[in-house]
């Protein structure tokens, strides 16, 4: 996946400002930055919840910024939402089956696939729960499971660890590592630095929609500009 | 030329009174984020209250409205407190239930009035009914002119209320962001009740002003619901000035349509404009100006 000089303006506000980056196949790529720095907007541009003001986004040799969200998912880019969006009146199993239906028309096969994914994400014990009644940790996991059921090649994870306790965070990290083992490329947006340093191969830090630096996690996290950006936030 | 001038001016005057009704609706929509299909019925009830004042005590409709407004204010508060706020606590599959609830309310109001007054057409005859001012070859109905002036005065008073008083500011804050307003110590439930009352009172005022000009019967409410909707969508949801502009626009468009197109398809034109604005101008006519 590659983004070339993407810009997004909302009225007078520039949310993403001339950002270029490429994600290599099979890696876990981290995206960090203070609140409001444009991380979620980048995701919304990749899966085309809104179109970029300028610039292009490519996946393999396809240009994808001209497609619609469902076409992008069909191509193999799935995402989770920072503010989770469970299909509340469906059970956990039905939620995941809805994802699985992207690759099959058969209810039986969709259920089979969904059960596999639930097992993988350790959600099996919740399978008949209405999704609206899950705890935060389980909802976050359901987001991942549902996205995974669409059999993506690239997975966008938006603040999967936010609001989790240390043990749940560890489990989430385990699941993300295992997903990579399946050969899925992953981009994570994260505030929890432990997750970033723990699982990412490369990290890009952004602020005000612009790139500060890109590189190995340890280097990026200790980069003076990055520290300044986060401290600036603490001041305000 | 005089015909065109007269048509436009009539439209503007009528539109000013429509706007008062629509401002009531837009206020309710803005604060509660609900679609109120009972609004026209509230107008209708207000008109009947004024009508009764006229028949029973010979009260002029412009004074009768001072009775109708508090009555409708209370009615609005009751509806909001006992029905609409209650609905928020009900877990349902379709959030659009709310729309149907207002349909039910409208049905109840219409039928209660029908039960009391039957379906007869009624009208009032004031000394100035039928009197007209002659200005440069155009004749302008006095009832329209007076109604327009009063409507504008009310609009200005409302504007002052919303911008200068604490309660008015609380209403605007709740409309912008209910949760944030609650954090700031606004009692959102109370605000919604007062807003619905206020919107209903404005509906009653608009209806009373139109009483000397319209025949009155229980089903007239639907007509005003439709008009208020078109205006609200034209003006952009929740905007008072938008509703004023939308009201004037609809008044002129209707007036021109009735004179030059013919009565039958007049309403179709209104609905088509409504659909187009809904689809292409999500913030009403204002989005044309901004572009």
């Amino acid at each position, binding site marked *: 996946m590659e983004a070339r000089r993407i810009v997004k303006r909302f009225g007078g506000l520039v949310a993403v400002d001339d950002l270029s980056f490429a994600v290599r196949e099979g890696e876990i790529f981290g995206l960090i930055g203070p609140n409001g720095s444009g991380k979620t907007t980048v995701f919304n541009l990749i899966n085309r919840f809104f179109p970029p003001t300028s610039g292009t986004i490519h996946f393999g040799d396809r240009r994808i910024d001209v497609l619609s969200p469902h076409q992008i998912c069909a191509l193999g880019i799935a995402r989770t939402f920072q503010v989770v969006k469970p299909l509340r009146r*469906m059970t956990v199993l039905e939620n995941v089956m809805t994802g699985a239906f992207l690759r099959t028309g058969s209810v039986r096969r969709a259920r089979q696939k969904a059960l596999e994914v639930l097992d993988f994400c350790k959600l099996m014990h919740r399978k008949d729960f209405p999704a609206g009644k899950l705890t935060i940790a389980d909802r976050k996991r359901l987001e991942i499971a549902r996205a995974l059921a669409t059999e993506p090649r690239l997975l966008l994870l938006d603040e999967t660890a936010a609001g989790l306790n240390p043990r749940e965070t560890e489990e989430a990290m385990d699941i993300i590592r295992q997903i990579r083992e399946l050969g899925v490329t992953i981009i994570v947006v994260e505030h929890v630095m432990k997750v970033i340093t723990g699982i990412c191969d490369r990290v890009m830090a952004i602020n005000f929609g612009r790139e500060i630096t890109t590189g190995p996690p340890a280097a990026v996290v200790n980069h003076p500009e990055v520290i300044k950006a986060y401290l600036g936030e603490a001041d305000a | 030329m005089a015909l065109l001038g007269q048509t436009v001016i009539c439209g503007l005057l009528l539109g000013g009174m429509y706007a008062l009704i629509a401002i009531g609706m837009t206020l309710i929509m803005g604060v509660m984020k609900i679609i109120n299909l009972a609004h026209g019925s509230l107008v209708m009830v207000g008109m009947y209250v004024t009508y009764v004042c006229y028949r029973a005590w010979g009260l002029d409709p412009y004074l009768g409205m001072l009775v109708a407004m508090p009555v409708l204010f209370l009615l609005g508060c009751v509806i909001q407190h006992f029905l609409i706020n209650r609905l928020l606590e009900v877990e349902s599959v379709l959030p659009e239930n709310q729309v149907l609830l207002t349909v039910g309310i409208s049905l109840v109001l219409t039928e209660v009035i029908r039960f009391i007054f039957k379906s007869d057409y009624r009208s009032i005859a004031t000394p100035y009914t039928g009197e007209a001012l002659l200005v440069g070859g155009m004749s302008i109905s006095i009832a329209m002119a007076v109604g327009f002036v009063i409507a504008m005065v009310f609009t200005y008073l409302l504007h002052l209320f919303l911008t200068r008083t604490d309660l008015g500011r609380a209403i605007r804050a709740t409309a912008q962001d209910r949760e944030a307003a609650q954090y700031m110590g606004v009692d959102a439930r109370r605000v919604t009740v007062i807003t619905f009352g206020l919107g209903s009172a404005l509906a009653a005022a608009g209806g009373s002003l139109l009483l000397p000009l319209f025949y009155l019967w229980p089903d007239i409410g639907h007509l005003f619901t439709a008009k208020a909707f078109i205006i609200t969508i034209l003006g952009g949801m929740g905007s008072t000035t938008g509703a004023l502009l939308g009201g004037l626009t609809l008044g002129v468009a209707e007036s021109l349509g009735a004179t030059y197109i013919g009565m039958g398809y007049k309403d179709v034109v209104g609905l088509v404009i409504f659909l187009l604005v809904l689809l292409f101008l999500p913030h009403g006519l204002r989005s044309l100006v901004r572009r």
Partner: protein
Amino acid sequence: MHRYRIWAAVALALLALALPFIFNSPYYQHMLILILIWAALGTAWNLLGGYCGQVSFGHAAFFGLGAYSAGLLYLHLGASPWWGMALGPVVATLVSIPIGLICFRLRGPYFALAMLALGEIFRLVFLNWISFTNGPRGILMVAARPGKILFYYLALAILGLALWWSYLLIKSKFGYYFVSIREDQDAAEALGIPTTRYKLYALLPSAFLTGLVGAFYMNYVAFIEPNVVFSLGNVSVMIILVVILGGVATLWGPTVGAAMYIALGELFRAQLGAANVLAFGVLVCLVILFLPNGVVGEVDLFKRLMGGKRRGDVGGSLGSP
């Protein structure tokens, strides 16, 4: 499917077939036919409104188009309105395509409003296009007509078709996709669901069935008029009431709702006289406040709370026994 369910279905079917002989009077047969009509309308609306969450306040448009297809065939070509039963649903379906493509751009209450406006536009056009539609004078059919029994079985067949079609859709991928669109359109889109297309897949059968019932209505009542068949208050809104009364997004809800609607309507008319519409208004408010998911919906919820497992049903309120 459990064995007792099969027996229940067989018993129900036999009962449905025997009903007109049990209630062997034209009055009761008329009531039964009305129940079937409203049940079919509710079932059709439920596909789009209940499952897919696109609350249409304009289904009278499809009903009226079906009725007028039959009526106009008779008026202009002298053809038997029975042909309308073939034409009506097709016309309603074809018209629903542009309507859907236009209105599905809007979400939630705005979709509801747009559909309401569209329904009214149809009513006004049919009212004013006098040279083609006869306008407010309507279309009266004068021809020998079969007895009530035949109409009963025809209506039963239409309801059967509606239920069977809904059942097939709900139990398949379509059902899951419809409900996911209702629950969260953004999430559905992000899961690779072409939401506009699937909303259309819910609208098409819904419009088809509604048009079919409309054409049946023309044959049965033999008189139509724009203010009746395109009515906002008496068709579009009452369809929604029937569904909410019985159970939103349940297979049998609309049928139960239709029976309650007709029975209550008769009761109100007999007991309350002029105040019967008032009673309906009060009923609408009470149902929405205290029974927002309908009789069948609440029963399902109750079962679920009691820990009953119902496999193979989607979407909480989606399944039904």
